[in-house]
């Protein structure tokens, strides 16, 4: 048997609906149609009352989830694309994310965000939005890179009592496969980063689809004798500084890689934390590699040059190693 990343998301939702009556799923076209990416295929058949189609109203969808959560439900909201969460942005950061602090009543909602670039998707179907929901207080932001993490972290996210932004990478949906949900390595709790690939000459810290690009880059450099360690953050908030710093302690060199825009964001947060906690550990200036500071282009040729690739990660690593 072999399962994909999108299977993991579907099966986790199946499990959540099955094991907890307070779970429901709400989103555009997620009912009979099974969702734009088929992540909810078949679920409405089994739980017609708890798998519901929404109008094109992202603001109201989040508001509705907040209300349902107050009353004891654990809604999973599917954004058709992460990019459209900008319309629900206010309800997420100002209502959901402040509710516990303001009132003492937590709102356990999980917002599924089909994230990241794919060729030919353009500026509005390719975004990675983890940084903006991490900047505001009050959300947990998950960024699974493996089939097993996609499965378990979604279930753990739904079980949490606070708003969870679950960033699932569209590029991994059907491409990323595993034997089963236990198969691809050690299971870890949310808040723990994973050393995906051990190494000793430099550390690449990244998350989501970029973990795979970083591993490819590491493999490319292996032939040249470099051993690159790849750390998968798994969640960007909380961010596991300890594991990152421990890796940097071994390698002395840090490259933070992300698929989102270059100003601020995850890579800046990583570098800042490592500098604070592990200043003396570094043998070279910490580097960052992000997408370019422009909207995500539509044409695959432009798109491939806009985001980090194994080649550009190699390039950055060589610069880092040459220091």
């Amino acid at each position, binding site marked *: 048997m072999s399962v994909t990343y999108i299977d993991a998301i579907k099966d986790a939702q199946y499990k959540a609906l099955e094991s907890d009556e307070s779970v*429901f799923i709400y989103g555009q076209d997620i009912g009979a149609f099974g969702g734009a990416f088929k992540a909810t295929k078949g679920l409405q058949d089994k739980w017609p*009352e*708890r798998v519901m189609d929404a*109008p094109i*109203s992202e*603001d*109201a*969808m*989040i*508001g*509705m*989830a*907040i*209300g*349902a*959560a*107050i*009353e*004891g*439900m654990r*809604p999973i909201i599917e954004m058709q694309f992460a990019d459209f969460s900008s319309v629900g942005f*206010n*309800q997420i950061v*100002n*209502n959901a*994310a*402040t*509710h*516990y*602090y*303001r*009132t*003492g*009543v*937590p709102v*356990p909602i999980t917002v599924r965000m089909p994230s990241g670039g794919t060729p030919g998707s353009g500026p509005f179907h390719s975004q990675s939005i983890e940084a903006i929901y991490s900047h505001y*207080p*009050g959300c*947990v932001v998950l960024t699974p890179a493996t089939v097993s993490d996609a499965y378990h972290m979604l279930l*753990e996210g739904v*079980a*949490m*009592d*606070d708003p969870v932004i679950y960033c699932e990478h569209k590029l991994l949906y059907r491409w990323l496969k595993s034997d089963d949900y236990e198969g691809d390595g050690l299971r870890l*709790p*949310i*808040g723990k980063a994973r050393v995906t690939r051990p190494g000793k000459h430099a550390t690449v810290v990244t998350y989501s689809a970029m973990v795979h690009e970083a591993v490819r880059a590491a493999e490319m450099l292996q032939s040249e004798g470099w051993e690159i360690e790849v750390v998968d953050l798994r969640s960007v908030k909380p961010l596991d500084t300890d594991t990152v710093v421990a890796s940097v302690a071994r390698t002395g060199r840090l490259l933070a890689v992300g698929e989102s825009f270059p100003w601020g964001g995850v890579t800046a947060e990583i570098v800042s934390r490592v500098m604070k906690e592990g200043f003396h550990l570094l043998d070279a200036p910490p580097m960052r590699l992000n997408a370019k500071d422009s909207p995500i282009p539509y044409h695959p040729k432009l798109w491939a040059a806009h985001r980090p690739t194994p080649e550009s990660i190699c390039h950055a690593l060589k610069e880092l190693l040459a220091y």
Partner: protein
Amino acid sequence: MDLTKEHARKVYRAMVTARLLEAKFSSLYKAGQIVGGVYLGKGQEAVSASIGGRLEMGKDIFAPLIRDQAGRTAFGEDMLDATRTYLGSVKGPMRGRDGNIHRGRPKEGLIAMISHLGTSLSVLGGMLKARQIQGRMDGCVGATCIGDGATSTGSFHEGLNYVAVEKLPVVVVVADNQFAYSTPSSKQYACDDLIDRAKGYGLVGHSVDGTDTLACASVIGGAVDAARRGEGPQMVVAKLLRLGGHGEHDDGSYIPEEIRTSHYGRDCIEVGKAQLFERGWLSEDELAEWENEAKREVQAAVTKAQKEDAPDPYREDWSSLSRGSFRNW
């Protein structure tokens, strides 16, 4: 609906109490004793108490907005909640973390609004939807108030459409007080009357003169009853005037004299008094007693809250996440 003496008296008593409580907040504000801004419901008590007073705390859900002290009082919110919040007591429901009209007790059916207008309606809808899924609707109703200005928000539109599509037992009361802060309705909407919106959402619409206390009690109460009977979401548009500034920092001098002295410039408290007296549903003595009782209560709440501690930053845990998120970590 058939207006009962009991409901009319409940509504009016809440109006009187709220007016006195807010007058106290206003003078405390002027004396510099309030933490933050003060936003009053003067002139809107009839509308507000009519909705709050037809709901049952513990069973129904209420999402008050800026000018709903009377509705909160009628709904059953403890006067100490308001007083503590305004005076900055750590014992208030928001513990100093949020203030004034943002207070609420979501678990008791009183939604704690955020400032961004229009956002409470979908939350209300979600609470009702949850109960429906859980099979514990139990004849409950959800209600919210909103101003003319806030009808221009996309959030309100999405929320209104949501409760309509889901046919939830909701009453939306639009208090059209002709101004949003300083902005007159002519810059806010272009229809003749906001009630013209009801049909477009598939809502049952009701219009009422918001200065006519008994009409409000009857029409708004009737809308709640209709929602409770399962007749679907209801919308009431009440026309009236804010009898003061936007907040106590504002003198509202931009409201033209001819609007102030127009029909809607009259005070619903005065109108209601005359109406209840005329029907013999209230006597001068009883009213005086209500007022005295309210004053005593207000004074007691203020005295109590003033003695309470402000929040202490050193004891604050500053956590935006609940413990529950960490249970699996």
